[in-house]
């Protein structure tokens, strides 16, 4: 199989709002940073571009047609993936694996602050006949998931609160993060009940920002990159959309289990906890980080909360998780979530993660979930080893 490497990463400034720039100007900033990071290449030398977006979030249909200018992709092969940006990354990777292309961009952005009725957008993602007429705020879906996950695994609300405290603390060391804070279990548990057992502090707040990543064939990577980061494995899966018959999918993140299985197989990983050094894992809601850790086979079911409280997933622990601050600390970037997590893994593997740098890391995992009401996840294994 043709090997593919990440040779450039660019991230715009992130913020709870971004009133000073249009999405075009925001993506341009990320693209310039990415191309500069790849040694100062000009987009004329890039073969194709893959953007990930969701029209409802942008308020424009065929949002993909609005991609080219800000990436330098005018009159170039461009396509959009309606999905998390790691699904876009998979597509960009496959472009290169055809053997026809050497340099392909994956990009995504969030202008969440522009969406005035986000709950409605999520609501329109629910089945219009069997779910929407109930008239519930769609975040109830996260409440249902959390309830079942806690019930099946014996995980406590305090375990989930510890996820919030740790991630927001980690975010204090990430200059890009929007929601860093020093908080503790008691404060999180005392935050208002919203969709019980889900509380206000269990939910990642939205942020605006853009991420652009440049992928290269092995030949081109050796020519361009001082520190290429190789994509060793990638996998993605989607569970049934039917909320009424998701079976095991309420308590367990089955999509994550399957995505990881595919990625581990491709990367030749049999013991993820020991063969992977660290991870950036979806934490859209506090419980999701724990549920995902278990589904990704980093630990057994019901173990994640206890290991977390023993410090296993902290900087000093055996398997550091979300050193960036995760979505809870960095901000929830919608379809750009996955690429941001990937960017963090790349920075760590290159030794460029600043004050959050981990020592001697060789292999990292990025995992993204598409958020409610989806049951779609993507796992990517990256390594700085040849």
């Amino acid at each position, binding site marked *: 199989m043709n090997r593919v490497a990440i040779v450039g990463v660019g991230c715009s400034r992130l913020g709870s709002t971004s009133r000073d720039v249009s999405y075009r100007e925001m993506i341009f900033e990320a693209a310039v940073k990415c191309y500069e990071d790849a040694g100062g290449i000009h987009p004329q030398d890039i073969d194709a571009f893959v953007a990930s977006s969701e029209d409802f979030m942008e308020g424009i249909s065929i949002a993909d047609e609005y991609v080219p200018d800000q990436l330098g992709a005018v009159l170039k092969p461009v396509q959009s993936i309606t999905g998390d940006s790691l699904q876009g990354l998979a597509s960009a990777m496959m472009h290169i694996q055809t053997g026809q292309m050497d340099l392909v961009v994956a990009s995504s952005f969030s202008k969440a602050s522009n969406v005035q009725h986000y709950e409605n957008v999520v609501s329109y993602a629910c089945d219009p006949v069997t779910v*929407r007429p109930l008239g519930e705020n769609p975040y109830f879906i996260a409440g249902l998931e959390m309830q079942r996950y806690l019930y099946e695994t014996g995980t406590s609300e305090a375990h989930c609160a510890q996820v919030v405290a740790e991630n927001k603390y980690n975010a204090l060391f990430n200059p890009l993060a929007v929601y860093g804070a020093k908080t503790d279990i008691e404060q999180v548990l005392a935050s208002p009940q919203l969709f019980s057992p889900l509380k206000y502090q269990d939910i990642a707040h939205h942020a605006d920002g853009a991420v652009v990543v440049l992928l290269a064939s092995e030949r081109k990577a050796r020519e361009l990159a001082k520190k290429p980061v190789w994509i060793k494995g990638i996998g993605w899966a989607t569970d049934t959309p039917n909320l009424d018959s998701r079976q095991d999918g309420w308590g367990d993140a089955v999509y994550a289990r399957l995505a990881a299985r595919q990625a581990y197989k491709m990367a030749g990983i049999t013991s993820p906890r020991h063969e992977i050094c660290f991870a950036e894992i979806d934490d859209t809601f506090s419980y999701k980080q724990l549920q995902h850790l278990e589904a990704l086979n980093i630990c057994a079911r019901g173990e994640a909360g206890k290991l977390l409280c023993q410090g296993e997933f902290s900087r000093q622990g055996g398997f550091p998780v979300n050193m960036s601050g995760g979505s809870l600390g960095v901000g929830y970037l919608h379809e750009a979530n996955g690429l941001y997590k990937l960017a963090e893994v790349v920075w760590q593997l290159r030794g460029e993660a600043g004050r959050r740098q981990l020592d001697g890391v060789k292999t990292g995992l990025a995992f993204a979930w598409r958020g409610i009401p989806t049951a779609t996840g993507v796992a990517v294994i990256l390594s700085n080893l040849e």
Partner: protein
Amino acid sequence: MSNRQYIQGGIGLSEDDIQQGKVFFAEDSLNCRYAWDMGVAIERYLRELKNGRIIAKSCNECRRIMVPPRMFCELCFRPSDDWVFVQDTGVVNTFSICYVNWDASRIKPGETPHLPAVIEIDGASKGMGIMHRLGEVDPKDIKIGMRVKAVWKPAEERTGAITDIKYFKPYQEV
């Protein structure tokens, strides 16, 4: 083989069944609102429209004068350079005579057709300008290459929108 195939195991629906609510139907309406950030370039563009003038941005590498303005040149992939005012006159690049309304209804007999046109603005680079509409013109007389000039709303009615220009009308240089 007959139409029967399509209703096997079911019952054909009549208009009455729907009118009388004998069959299930769901009605929903979308409520999505966005507060788009215009960004540096389009914000200035709209502000100048409110002032009754058209502003562009230059790229000193490809030497283009770009309307609408943008903070980066999408061809050179570099930041754009200077703010430049351009004329409110130009040339029709292409046009269409539209007998159908926004909602797909046909215009009434005697009504003037809609006249969308691409106007290449004087002072901007060839092929750049404003997507707008024509007015004060007999559709029969519209020609590609025809010279036109903006007809602005009165200053007190302008809001900082592309519709601050009512339309472009034929224009003879004096």
